Structure formats: C-alpha cells, structure tokens
C-alpha cells in the first residue's frame, strides 16, 4: 500500500502532499521536513530507496523517490509494493503531469495545485485505497508505449 505521496522542491517547500493515514497538520509538516532532510542529503547517483523507519508506520515502510529538476517526488510505501513498480509509477505520474501542463515545471504545480491533484487521479485512485491500480498505465510500463488517458480537465472546470 502507498502510505503517502509527497512532492516538495529543493528547499523542502511542500508542493503537493497526500497522506492516506490521518495525521495532524503538525505531524504532516514534521514528516515532510524529515523526509526532505533524508532525501536532500543524497547524491544524484545513489539508489532511490530509503528505509523510512520511524517516519510513517514503522520499519515495514520504505521511501521511494525520484528527483526531477527542482522537485522531489516521494512515495512512502509498505512492503506489499514492488519497489521498481513504484519507481515506474512515479515516472508515469510525472509524464501525466507533463501532458496536462505541457512541459511541466514547479510553477505549474504551484499555480494549479487543484488540477495537479486531479491529474494525479490515476495515481490517486491508486492510493485512494492505498493500492496500486493503474488500469491504463501498467500495461505499458515495461513495454514502453505509454498511452495515458488523462481525465479531460477542461470539462471539469
């Protein structure tokens, strides 16, 4: 299961956060801060897994992250998830954002938080119940022909 999805920038400012367990606002910020500290210390060419340990839940959990330009995408998951699968998922998530915003950058996330949240809907549905379900996406990941159905945003707004 996915326990939380955190997106923050190189300075630790949260850009999008979603916790799938109730935490108080203070704890959430604390978790984001600590995660940022853990992740930001790491070099570019080290592995993308971190034992989250005390952060959320316990030792069963892992932090799986990717760093794109100015943004960190961190997924906190437990042992029932495939590590490599989540890495692919992050990739898909970012590509989805890219399609929504055309060359996504940090500012897009800042100014369109609500839309970004929605673009994450597939990833969200994933985590909606903290589970992986990307009906359209998964089939492609390992094959390479990514064709993501982005929920048509304009009709919602």
């Amino acid at each position, binding site marked *: 299961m996915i326990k939380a999805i955190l997106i923050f920038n190189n300075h630790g400012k949260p850009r999008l956060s979603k916790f799938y367990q109730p935490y108080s606002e203070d704890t959430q910020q604390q978790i984001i801060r600590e995660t940022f500290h853990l992740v930001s210390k790491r070099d570019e060419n*080290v592995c993308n897994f971190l034992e989250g340990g005390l952060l959320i839940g316990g030792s069963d959990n892992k932090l799986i992250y990717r760093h794109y330009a100015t943004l960190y995408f961190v997924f906190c998951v437990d042992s029932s998830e495939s590590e490599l699968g989540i890495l692919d998922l992050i990739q898909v998530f970012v590509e989805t954002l890219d399609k929504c915003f055309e060359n996504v950058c940090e500012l897009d996330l800042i100014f369109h938080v609500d839309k970004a949240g929605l673009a994450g809907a597939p990833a969200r549905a994933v985590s909606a119940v903290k589970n992986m379900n990307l009906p359209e996406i998964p089939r492609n990941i*390992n094959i390479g022909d990514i064709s993501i159905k982005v929920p048509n945003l304009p009709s919602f707004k």
Partner: protein
Amino acid sequence: MALKMVKGSIDRMFDKNLQDLVRGIRNHKEDEAKYISQCIDEIKQELKQDNIAVKANAVCKLTYLQMLGYDISWAAFNIIEVMSASKFTFKRIGYLAASQCFHEGTDVIMLTTNQIRKDLSSPSQYDTGVALTGLSCFVTPDLARDLANDIMTLMSHTKPYIRKKAVLIMYKVFLKYPESLRPAFPRLKEKLEDPDPGVQSAAVNVICELARRNPKNYLSLAPLFFKLMTSSTNNWVLIKIIKLFGALTPLEPRLGKKLIEPLTNLIHSTSAMSLLYECVNTVIAVLISLSSGMPNHSASIQLCVQKLRILIEDSDQNLKYLGLLAMSKILRTHPKSVQAHKDLVLQCLDDKDESIRLRALDLLYGMVSKKNLVEIVKKLMSHVDKAEGTTYRDELLTKIIDICSQCNYQHITNFQWYISVLVELTRLEGTRHGHLIAAQMLDVAIRVKAIRKFAVSQMSALLDRAHLVASSTQRNGICEVLYAAAWICGEFSEHLQEPQQTLEAMLRPKVTTLPGHIQAVYVQNVVKLYAAILQQREQAAEPEAAQDVTQLMVERLPQFVQSADLEVQERASCVLQLVKHIQKLQAKDVPVAEEVSALFAGELNPVAPKAQKKVPVPEGLDLDAWINEPPSDSESEDEKPKAIFHEEEQRHVKQRQPEADEEELARRREARKQEQANNPFYIKSSPSPQKRYQDLPGVEHIPVVQIDLSVPLKVPGMPVSDQYVKLEEERRHRQRLEKDRKKKKKKDKEKKGKPRRHGSLHTESDEDIAPAQQVDIVTEEMPENALPSDEDDKDPNDPYRALDIDLDRPLADSEKLPIQKHRNADTCKSPEKEDVPVTEKKIKKLKKKEKKHKEKEREKKKGKEEEKVKPSKHKKKKHKKEKEERSKDKKKPKKKKPASDGAAEPVENGALDEDPLPPMSSYCLLAENAYVKMTYDIQGSLQKDSQVTVSVVLENQSSSFLKNMELSVLDSLNTKLARPEGSSVHDGVPVPFQLPPGVSNEAQFVFTVRSIVTAQKLKGTLSFIAKNDEGSTHEKLDFQLHFSCTSYLVTTPCYSDAFAKLLESGDLSMSSVKVDGISMSFQNLLAKICFHHHFSVVERVDSCASMYSRSIQGHHVCLLVKKGEKSVSVDGKCSDAALLGSLLEEMKATLAQC
C-alpha cells in the same frame, strides 16, 4: 433580498481565488504567516456567504493552506456544505478538502452519511467516483457499517470506472467494519474474473492486501490465482499475485512445488526487471518453505543467487540495492550459497550509497563465523571511525553488537576481545545506542563468569574516564554505559585492583550532572564498593584506613541527597544515615565489615526478560477473585453511623475463628473447591501435574564449565581490540602446531613405516578453532513450566487481527450486511439543500441513542464472551482447540447481531423491549438426499434489470468426497440460466468447488428473466461424483427452483414526500388482502415483511405503516399495512397489476404463518 444577492455576487468578483492566494503568498515571502492569517480571516468571511460558489472557492483555498500545515478542521461544517453542492465542480472541491482533513475524530462526519449515500447512487459516474475516492480517506466504522451495502451494490455497477473504485474501497470498509468481509467476499471473488482488467487488478490488489495479513484464510483461492498467474499478461497484476504466493507458500508447501516451474519460466522469459525481481523473491520464499522437506532444489537456488549477483553487479544502484535485499532472504536458510559471494558483499560495504551499505551490513550478519568474526568486526570498526552522519554510525554499532551477540555469542571465541570492542565503541560521540552497549556489557559480565575480572578492570578504567564519556548527557546517549560500568564495578567489587580509587571516581562532584537513573545506580554501588573496602581494611587490621573511607562517604554523599531526582535522593539519604551509623560504631571500635557486606550477600542470576510473564499461576490461586468482599455501593455512611462499629466487631470475631482452627480451614478449602467445581462460571485450573509450582533451583544448579585460560588476562596498556587480532592469530598458530605435533606423535606411534602426509595440507575449518576461553555462557533463568509461546509478540491492537475470518464457510444469511432502511421516526423528507443540516441533526441524535443502546448490548456480549474465553489463558496446551472455540464464541454474537438489528432497525422507535424475533433466514430448502443438502436464496440487483442471482448452499452430509458437481436446469421461455459462453442450452454449469465430508459452501448462479410479474418454477438436477474408500459413484439430485415475485424486489429506501408524490400520481393500480388470526406484534410483523419481502418502512403511525420496494425492472410497489385486533390488512399499489397480485398472494402466505 434579490438585490443583496446581486450585490453579493458582484463583490465576489473581487475575491481571491486559489491562484491569487498562491501568488500572494509568493509575494509576501517575509511576512508569510501574517499574510496567511489575513487570508484566513477573509476566508472566514467568505464562508458566511450564502453563495455556494464563494464557499467552494474558500474551501479550495483552505485545502491549499492545509497542505502548508494550517489546521482547517474548524471549517469542517462548511466543507460538508460544499460536498453537498449539486454542481460537480464544487462537490469535487468539497470531497478533496474532506479527504485531506477529515478523520475518525471529526465529529461532524456523521452528518455526511446521507449525502454520501446520495452521491453513491447518483446517475453521474463522476459524482459516484468522487464520493468513493473521498470516502476512502475518511471512512469511519460508523460510515463503513452504514454504507457497506451501498458500496457492495456498486461493485456490480455497469461502469468499470465505478466498479474498480468500489472494489478498492471495500478494503477500507473491511478494515473498519470486519463483519462486512464475509458477506462481501463472494462478490469480491467474482471480480477477480471481471472482464475489465482495471477492475480485475483492483480485486487482486484488495485480496492480496487482505491475504498478506491473514494468509491462511485465502489458501482456497490459490488455484484461481494460479490460473490468473499463468494467463495474465499484466505485469502489475502478476507482481501482486506473485507476492501473494510468497505469503501463501509457507502455509502450503505443495503449492510451492507447483509454483517453482512457472516461476522459473518467468525468470527466464521476462524482460521486466521488476517482475524478475519479484519472481526471484517468491522462488526464495518457496525454497524456504520447502527447505525442510525437499533437499534437492539446489538448481533453483543457484539460479536465484546467480540472477541476484547480476543485479548486485549492475551499475544501477537500485538494482544493486534490491539484489542485496533479496540475498539477505536466502541467507536465512541457505547461508552456504550466499557465503560464496562474500567478496561482493564486502565490496558493497565500501559503496558510497548509504542504503546499499546498510543492506550489505544485513548480509554480513549471516556470514560471520568463528573464523572471520574478528576480521569482519575490525573492518566495521574502521567504518565506524570513518562514517559521517550519526544514523549510519548508529546502524553500524547495532550491527556490530548484533553480529557478535547472535545465537548466544556462538561466534565469539575470546570475550576479552569483545569487551574491548565494546569499550572502544564508547568513544563514539552522539550515538543513541548507549543503552545497547551497556546492556551488552552487563550481559557478558554476568553470564560469562570467567571474564568478570577483566571486565571489572575495564569498567573501573571507564569510570575513571567518566568525564570523557559523560560530556553528552542526553538520555540513551553514551553515558548509559556508565550505568553498566558502575553496576559491574559494584557487584563484582571483589575483582577490583584498587577499589578505593574507583570509589573516589564514583563520588566525584561531576557525577551529579548524569541522568537520574545512572546516579541512582551510582549511589547503590558506591555502598557495595564501600562494603568491599571495609572488609579489606578490617582484614588487614587498619581501622583508621577504614574510618577514612567512612569519612569520605559522609562527606560526599550529601551531594546526592540534594539531587532533584527522587530515586537518587531517597537512596542517598538512606545510605547516608546508614554510613553515619557505621561511623558511630567504628568510633567505638566495633567491627562492622561483616554486617555491611551481609547487605549484599548472595549472587544475582541472569533472568530471561520474559520470565516474569511466564510464571505459571499456582494451583488454587484465582487472580480475579476478591480478596476481601468489595464494599457495596449502597452503603452510605451517614445513614447508620453507629451500626458500622457494631458490625465490625462482629466481623472481627468471625474472622478470628478460622485462623485458630487449622482443620476447619482445610475443610473449608475442600468445600470451596467442591463448589468451584460445580460452578460453571468458575475458572478451573488445569489438573496437569506439570503446572505445580516448584522451587527454582539455586545458583549451584546452574551448570558452569571450567575455564581454561590460555591467554594472559591482563593486556598491557589500554586495550585495543586490534591487539587481539594478533594475539588470536598467534594463539591459533600455537594450537595448530600443538595439534600437528600430537597428530605427528600419533601417527608416528601407529604407523611408523608409512610416509607422513604433508602437514601444510591441513586446512583450518570452523570446528577446529578452539575458543580461547572455554566459556560457559550461563543461560538466562526461566520459571519452571514456562511454555514457549509465540503469542507474546502479537499486538492485540493490530487492526488486521479483526480480519482473520474464515471465508470458506458458507454465509449464514444472518450475516448479511445491514441494509439501510429508512429511519421512520419523524417524517423525513428528501434532503434538500436548505434543510440538510436540520434533518440530519435529528438523525444524528437518533443515531446516538441507537449507538448507545448498541454499545450497551455489545458490552454485555463482550462480558459473556470474556467469561467464556478466560479458561483458555490457563490451558495453553489446548491452544489450538481453544482458538477454534474462541472464534466460535466470537462468531456467535456476530451472527445474531445483524439479524436482530436488521429486524429492529426499521421500527426502532417502537419499544425495543418487546419480545425479540427469532433469527430469520431467507434461505429455504431446495432439495436433500443422503449425500447433499441444498438451500437457496434468490436476489436481484437494481443494476441489472433482467438478472437475478441464485445463491445455493451445498452441504455435504455424507462421509464421501463430492466432486465434479454440476447444476443443470431446464430453461423456460421466460427464465434462463446464464451459462458460460459457447455452451449449449442443455449443458449444466459446473460448481466451482469440491466438497470434503461435512463441509458446505455457496455457489452462485445467474438467471436471466424476461418477465417478472408472475412466479415461476424451474426444474433442475444436481449431478455429482461421490467418492469414498469403496470407490466413486455417480449421483443425482433433482430439485425445483421457485422464483417467487418477491425475489425480484430489491430493498430501496424511499422518502415520505417522494412516496406521497408516487401515490398521488395515480398511475398505480391497487389491490388488497386481509389475513385473520395474527397474534404477532406489529413491530415483528413489519420486520418480517421487510426481511422476507424486501420492503422498507417509509412511515409508521401506531399500528399502521406504509412500506416501499422496487422491482429489478423498476416497478414501484407501495404498501399500506394496518393491524386490527387479530387481523392484518394489506393494501398495495403497484405500477403493474399482475405483479402486485402475485406479491400479495405471497405475502398472504407469509402472514398466515404468523
């Protein structure tokens, strides 16, 4: 009013939207907090507006602020308002905000139940979707209970988008409301074979997640998953299934054998690394489960290790990490095959990536042996020195200790070396694991007797250098080791070279800066030291020196007396008084040493940490019984003040008597035992003679082996663990030489003429290394009869425990999900925007009442349950049996609850204390013979207008094994059995399971129905093969399925205003029946109609009620039920006259039985 609205909306044009807020925050970098608090004030104003668009905008901004860490729970009510907006754009904002900030503690959450239900049944799939997504984040036990049935219906929605979400959210519902698991499981299982891959993978996910926690309940699904695994091409689903198999194989080794081949194929064929990795992982799990039974899988292990090596050698750090992770799993069972790759692991230890180093450390744990322990630890120690960052250093430290202490120190040949390693570790700064080192020091010093002298000398040196260690006084810091050092020096003070010096070190003023618990130990051990010194001095006949020591104590102890820590203060003042007293005695030249040492006579033995828990309750001791009669509550003091004295005197006399008479006591005990034996509620202690409590053996019974020291105990200078490496090598070399010499002698003696084999051929194997000290490691004491139990580690609060539910047992129909029927107390109207809060508040109050009542009931049941369960604590032997019993106990109340609740619910405002209904079952007998009994129930669903599901429970009544069961039905023009594609009308439908003797299970069959207005009967046959010891026979059982009109009705709640409109519309035809001679109460009558005929109560006034239901094809059915003296009349209105006619006939039959 209108003007105000227009004016309001013009004003609103200048409101900030989310973008403005974000921009504003970015422009106010310096005074962000101030700006935001100003914004929050604005938002508060906006929330007061009537305009829903304004509110939505405000809530949207709040959601953003929540992400930045601002508490927005105060706006919970406004969020609910926005959630109930009719426009999707607003609704979505509301649900998003709710999913961000609602949780179980949010009190307004119960107001949302109806809103969510409305959204769930909304015609727009997006409304339903957003409600499901939101609900998943804030579902509470109450919501789960109330909405479970609605969500279950959505699992068969026509749109895969909804089905998928509904399947996923069921997992959350199960967690919060475990009772729903069994009723919902058959449908969940169905979804595994959903045509839509998304829904399918959702179902796989949910079941995997459930099975991960309680795998044994899901073993029966293994064949289905096996089929999926071999047929699916979706890697994500495959990964999940393979992971699930990894959890199942330890329980069923046969499954493992079957898995090996397809998994190996996958490993060879797949190009996806993630899949490959998971396959390897599961193969490892399989091998682990097989390792005991089947020795010959070395090929598979080789394959795994080989693939993993490729991963580890890959330049991609991620793969390297995962490779090491999987390697550590193999290590546990097949250490040999991993040890071959030691080079690789040691190489990874130098990797620049911390995660990878940590994984490599894990692997090291299994690679140490007597031979290489010293070398490996040396390498780790050098890493400790180099490591930057305390976390990694702490990890190294714990690993060193883990590696050394594993399996009762089996790899340590030289404990002096270990102690010096520990002492070296104390030089680490800023570690959080001081207590770990301390615990090791204590453990080794206590359990390895031979090392005590050395340990004491090291510890006293440590106490001398305490100022270095104690610089950081944080708790759990390195200063914890002083705790151990002080204790060891005190307890084993007879080994101290210079006790006086150590005593002074422990009494330094600096000590008072240490944490309280350490100071307390200091005080205690100072006295031990003091006793030892006194003894020494008096034996040496130096009374003055002895008095000097006392003087020192009297001078220094007051610093502890002033401590702020209570423990230290208490101990210190106690000790101070004692020492002062000794001083007086000494002044009179009285020898005191003997008596002071007597304070600490005897030796302390190591006790296992769990020992206390495992002490069996001695026979005859009832921990729950009152020792004295509890004071009664009714007794009030000011009523009869005098009587108390009087009575007390009486009681006194009574009590004294038995004490005097020993015989009388024995007699009474016997009588009490007799009484207990006859009292079913008294928990009897098990009669097993083992349980009898026995005295623990004394110290001398602990086996201690003689120690043969071949290494000089005192190592010159400061001990550095490295020295030991050299020493150790020398020692081994010596040993080897000696051995060779002996061999030589032997050989020379025995075979003088034969040419000698070359001595250097001798290779050192692990067993050959004799330990430097023949050390007996004293085992920790455990109480007699302590039984090993694995239950110790289970967390009783684990939410997944509640989901440990047997899923193969067929559903009892009392277990059905509570179907929400309308609470009819006050005439409820359909919620419209304005009066939502009002009506809902009423409901809330009602609910609270109901809840309280239920809780009381639950408590009662719990009490009973506990009484039943208690004995099990005492009889651990019958563990398994009892577990079953317990689960039965648990199930019993569960079974009853929904039935009685379900029956009482619609009319709960009536007197609940009326006679309760017997549990009702909608399953009726289909057919029965010597082999099998069939009962069935028919249900329709609103989603499919021409389909009904027939659930047939098959119960094996014979001692034969029933298989190849097949159900064939003669279709009529109107009703047809849905058969798998491609099969002809005459084919039967196979039953998807087999039945061992005595087992029952439920199968579901779908029928398509064209017209539902008349009842019908279908003839059919169940054919099966009954197999027993004598052979197998082909058997048949004919039956007749009765499709009553009732089975086409689906319970649907209806609001009273909608109901009134429906009646007014005039396009319903009417009919009525009357039944005489009914004695049942009206309430139970209604409950019966609701249950058997799928109606819900719309409104009830005295002995008159209106009811509503809907057929699967959309016919409305309205009833007016009136109860007279001894009769009941039912007036029905329905959009189809024929349907109404048949329904009323059926109802008449039911009522006639009342």
